[in-house]
């Protein structure tokens, strides 16, 4: 904790300096993402698509960038079937998916030594919130409202491009996630857990492709 505080203070003091090296700075990006899911495994047999938004804060040091990304997407309504222990759940629902991940990027330099193309590796935690799950699946122990979640995580690889002009960037990511927990929450007001199954089938993988159009919110030349 003390180290983290010291790091924060260091970054703050650096950012207060009147001049700042372009290659050594905080970068904050906002992005719209389009997603395509290509599920495999025994629990999911349908492909679906969605849209969403993400925000990334990263610290660039020379050709490397280390960051944190939060992402939320919502996808169209499709059937699902999940077996978790003794529970066999199925329905026709759209879903919100939340992701929180850490990432590292490596930039390639063009002929003008500008950072244009980059590769990305990320590790993500994921949570899927099925929309309207109370309408198709009512757990007998729930009180007045039931929500259904899948939780898991995985890794992603991506390639991105920053055009020469403007703050925009474009990126394509592939992610592989393994969902491990099924959580049913009743009475949304107080969010009581009803049960959590650690063994969600034996093999519940989801492949996802993300197409991202983003903007470097803090600008690339300066953070002022």
């Amino acid at each position: 904790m003390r180290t983290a505080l010291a790091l924060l203070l260091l970054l703050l003091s650096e950012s207060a300096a009147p001049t700042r090296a372009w290659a050594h700075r905080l970068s904050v990006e906002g992005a719209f993402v389009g997603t395509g899911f290509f599920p495999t495994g025994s629990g999911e047999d349908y492909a679906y698509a969605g849209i969403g938004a993400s925000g990334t804060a990263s610290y660039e040091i020379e050709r490397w960038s280390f960051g944190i990304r939060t992402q939320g997407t919502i996808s169209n309504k499709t059937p699902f079937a999940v077996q978790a222990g003794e529970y066999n759940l199925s329905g026709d629902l759209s879903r919100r998916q939340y992701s929180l991940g850490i990432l590292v990027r490596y930039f390639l330099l063009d002929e003008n030594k500008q950072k244009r193309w980059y590769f990305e590796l990320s590790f993500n935690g994921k949570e899927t919130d099925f929309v309207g799950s109370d309408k198709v699946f009512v757990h007998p122990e729930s009180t007045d409202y039931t929500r259904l979640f899948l939780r898991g995580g995985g890794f992603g690889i991506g390639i991105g491009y920053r055009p020469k002009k403007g703050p925009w960037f474009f990126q394509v990511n592939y992610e592989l996630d393994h969902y491990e927990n099924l959580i049913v929450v009743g009475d949304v007001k107080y969010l009581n857990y009803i049960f959590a199954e650690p063994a969600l089938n034996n093999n519940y993988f989801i492949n996802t492709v993300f197409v991202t159009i983003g903007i470097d919110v803090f600008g690339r030349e300066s953070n002022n």
Partner: protein
Amino acid sequence: MHVAAPIIRAFILPWVFAFAAQTCAADEEINATKESGRTRYVEVIPRSHELSESARYVGMLYILSLGTYLVISPKEVFNNATLQNYARNFGNMTLFDQDLPSANWGMHIATGALAYQFYRARSYTKTDAFFLTLIQESLFQFTIETLIQPTALENVANTTIVGCIVGRGMEVASLPLLNSDFFLFRGVGYVLNLPAAFGLWESKVTVNPIIEKNKAGFALQVRF
């Protein structure tokens, strides 16, 4: 956490701290209704801050958020806020909570945007405003909210990263509106930039017309 808590945090707390901050900084404010000229809002011109000034802002907002939380969630605080609960909740820190999307992707972002705008209004750089928003949110999550329930890192990321992105967007959009001649546009500008509505925006330019015999022009006056 009570469902209404993030809503109240988003809409009540920023107004309260805006009033308080205005009081603290009243001696630094310029008169926005100068008879001789018209005040125009300009992009933040960062200035250096003493550590004591930053600490004063962070401490003030923290105390206000604590007070607000006590007011809106008295039962949860007085029934559950024990050191044992705090230790247990701190140990059960999670990536995601199951709060409604309106909280995690609505109110948290709104509070983050307002905190970011507040610090920008006090002439911090974008980077400094980002880290101060992070410190503010971390203080709230890991002390106040952890008393009641385990903290979700998703909340910290959404408030800080996406909040700053949204706050910056609103800031950029508000400046031309605030300088508009049409009162409705100015009204929208103040809605998008609440700190400006409370006179907290330091980077203003006063335009004083000069009309004398054989001479016409204007003088710009910038105050921080």
